[in-house]
């Protein structure tokens, strides 16, 4: 495209001068064989005619010279043909000039050397030959008048001189006429030269025009093909769109700017119970939305049509044909033309009645779980704790053990309920964090105090780094302690008896990193991908032995992310696992 645009800009008259020169040179070389043949034949004829007379040596010498020049010229001719190129035209023209000069010189020499020695008859013969050779030059060198001028001068010059000094009155007169003849011939050659040049120019222009015409044709063909392809694509996407709309489970309406329904898909018929023929031509807001509904009323529509901005997530009550009220979520997109007028409005709508009901049930269930399960657990754990304090007297050893088992498992059940509730709150976005400035060193010490007794149950000691950095994080203190408790209890559970869990913290680039490291068996390979998932536990037998809900790390991950941080784990060098989390620091260390 660009290429043709460039050639378009070059006007047809601006012909490439070098191309014209090349054509002229080619023309000149095309004539050269005729010139060579003529020189050879006429030279041979002259040699034959002048043979009888004395000074045969001179004639032979001259003939030899003619042969050399014709052979050299033929050599030049073949060299040009073999090169077969149209470049270096100037150089080839120079060589041709040398050639023309040489041929002209041959005839000039004939005039100078042979003319004075011959009789009148032969002189006339020579004169005719020389004038003929000069005239023939016009045709031969018409494509370059300077070449002809040189060629003719090399003949006419010596010949005029010889005639003028011959002593004959007639020849002297001819000598006077010869320069005139020369000038006229050069004039004719000059005119011919220009005629030829304009001819070649025309030819060039024509060729270029033809090329451009051809290129233009190709371009038009390409463009037509592109248009045809584009049309096909548009048709295909139109069919695809129609299919999407037809098969989509979401109700789709097309309306005008007033909300009058123009078209609707089968899903819309299903959702609202109306056939398309009943709704097309009627107003969507007036027909499908109850009058007391405010989320999508006529005032809203007027505002929407004025603003022309897409709207999404509009929840509104809708009326079905059978009188049932449903809740729908609408997305409305105005299609606007270049003049900023609404061409049509596309509404996509989903019946979310069941989804809302499911959400309500889930919420109710969670609330029930929270209250109805905790209340009996309060009694169970409370009773068992009171028994286990020994305030009602010492129990039989087996009974005492069983009471401890019951208390421990009741506690586990409570932990599980709490964890499920936490996860549910986080996942439904109902968990609100109460961020405050928390001194990290104090938090770490507190987490050690809180979990020391738990770790000691496994014969594991907690070891806090000697001087944790005095840095403040902006986080929910209670939730951060929950994360620490989860990480420490995990680490304690998986540590060998008599081992220890190390807690440390560091602060770099306004981010605080806390690490909890154990010397346990490490995380099994097959478990790594789901370690932060729900109910993730590597070994369920171990769970039964040591407790845990399998939700702790899932909660940790969500809590840390809610606080703008990240959590990950790594294999600890020398065995064991280290869990790390990073949080943004609220203030630099003092």
């Amino acid at each position, binding site marked *: 495209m660009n290429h043709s645009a460039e050639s378009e800009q070059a006007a047809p008259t601006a012909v490439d001068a070098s191309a014209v020169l090349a054509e002229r040179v080619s023309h000149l070389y095309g004539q050269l064989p005729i010139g060579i043949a003529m020189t050879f034949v006429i030279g041979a004829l002259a040699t034959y005619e002048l043979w009888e007379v004395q000074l045969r040596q001179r004639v032979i010498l001259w003939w030899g010279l003619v042969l050399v020049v014709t052979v050299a010229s033929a050599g030049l001719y073949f060299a040009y043909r073999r090169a077969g190129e149209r470049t270096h035209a100037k150089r080839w023209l120079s060589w041709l000039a040398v050639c023309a000069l040489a041929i002209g010189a041959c005839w000039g020499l004939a005039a100078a050397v042979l003319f004075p020695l011959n009789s009148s008859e032969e002189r006339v013969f020579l004169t005719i030959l020389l004038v003929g050779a000069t005239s023939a030059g016009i045709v031969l060198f018409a494509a370059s008048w300077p070449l002809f001028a040189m060629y003719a001068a090399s003949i006419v010059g010596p010949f005029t001189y010889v005639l003028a000094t011959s002593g004959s009155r007639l020849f002297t007169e001819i000598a006077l006429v010869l320069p005139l003849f020369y000038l006229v011939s050069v004039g004719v050659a000059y005119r011919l030269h220009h005629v030829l040049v304009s001819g070649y120019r025309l030819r060039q222009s024509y060729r270029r025009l033809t090329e451009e015409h051809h290129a233009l044709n190709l371009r038009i063909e390409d463009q037509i093909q592109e248009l045809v392809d584009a049309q096909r694509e548009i048709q295909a996407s139109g069919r695809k769109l129609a299919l999407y709309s037809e098969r989509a489970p979401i109700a789709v309406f097309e309306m005008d700017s007033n909300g009058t329904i123009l078209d609707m898909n089968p899903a819309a018929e299903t959702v609202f119970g109306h056939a398309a023929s009943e709704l097309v031509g009627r107003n969507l807001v007036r027909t499908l939305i109850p009058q007391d509904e405010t989320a999508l009323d006529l005032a809203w529509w007027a505002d929407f049509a004025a603003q022309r901005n897409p709207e999404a997530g509009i929840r509104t009550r809708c009326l079905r044909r059978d009188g049932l009220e449903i809740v729908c979520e609408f997305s409305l997109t105005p299609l606007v033309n270049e003049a900023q007028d609404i061409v049509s409005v596309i509404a996509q709508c989903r019946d979310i009645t069941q989804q809302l009901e499911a959400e309500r049930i889930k919420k109710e269930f969670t609330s029930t779980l929270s209250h109805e399960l905790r209340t009996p*657990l309060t*009694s169970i754990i*409370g009773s068992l704790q009171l028994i286990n304090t020994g*305030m009602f007297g010492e129990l039989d050893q087996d009974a005492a053990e069983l009471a401890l088992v019951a208390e421990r498992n009741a506690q586990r059940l409570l932990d599980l309920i709490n964890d499920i509730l936490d996860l549910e709150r986080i996942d439904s976005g109902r968990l609100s964090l109460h961020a405050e400035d928390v001194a990290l060193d104090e938090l770490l010490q507190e987490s050690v105090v809180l979990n020391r007794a738990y770790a000691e149950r496994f014969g594991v000691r907690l070891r806090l780094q000697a001087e944790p950095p005095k840095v403040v994080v902006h986080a929910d203190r209670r939730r951060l302690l929950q994360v620490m408790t989860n990480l420490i209890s995990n680490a304690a559970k998986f540590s060998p008896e008599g081992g220890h869990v190390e807690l440390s913290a560091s602060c770099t680039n306004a981010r605080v990193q806390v690490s909890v490291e154990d010397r346990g068996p490490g995380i099994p390979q097959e478990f790594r991908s789901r370690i932060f998932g729900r109910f993730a536990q590597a070994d369920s037998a171990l769970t039964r032995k040591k407790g845990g809900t399998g939700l702790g790390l899932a909660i940790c991950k969500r809590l840390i992310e809610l606080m703008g941080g990240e959590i990950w784990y790594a294999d600890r060098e020398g065995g064991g696992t280290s869990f790390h989390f990073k949080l943004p620091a609220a203030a630099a260390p003092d």
Partner: protein
Amino acid sequence: MPTQPLRRICCVEDDDDIRRIVRLSLERIGGMTVDLVADPAVAIDSMIAFRPDLVMLDWMMPGIDGPALLRKMREVPETRALPVVFITAKASQRELAELSALGAAGTISKPFAPKDLPGQLRAIWNALP
């Protein structure tokens, strides 16, 4: 901080089992005198008769719930100044904030540990102005 130690507790709780545990915990471990009320409708009369140092209220009860009972107590001269501690299974910060806005002296979340309950109540008592 009140001058006399915490001795008399009135507990309004609809769950029989929890009432029993509260009584055992406060009497046997805490050495306190406990008045248990199962029906919130008669709670205020019971409080007037018993004259407790502190009242424990369950948050969720049939008929009158804890917060409604607290509001009623504030209307009765004999119970107006009594410090109230809520027992609740709800744990969200928003709900706890709601309770302190009502004028609760403190909250104890369910499930509570019976052996720690007297200590928790004494801590709340000692923190009173």
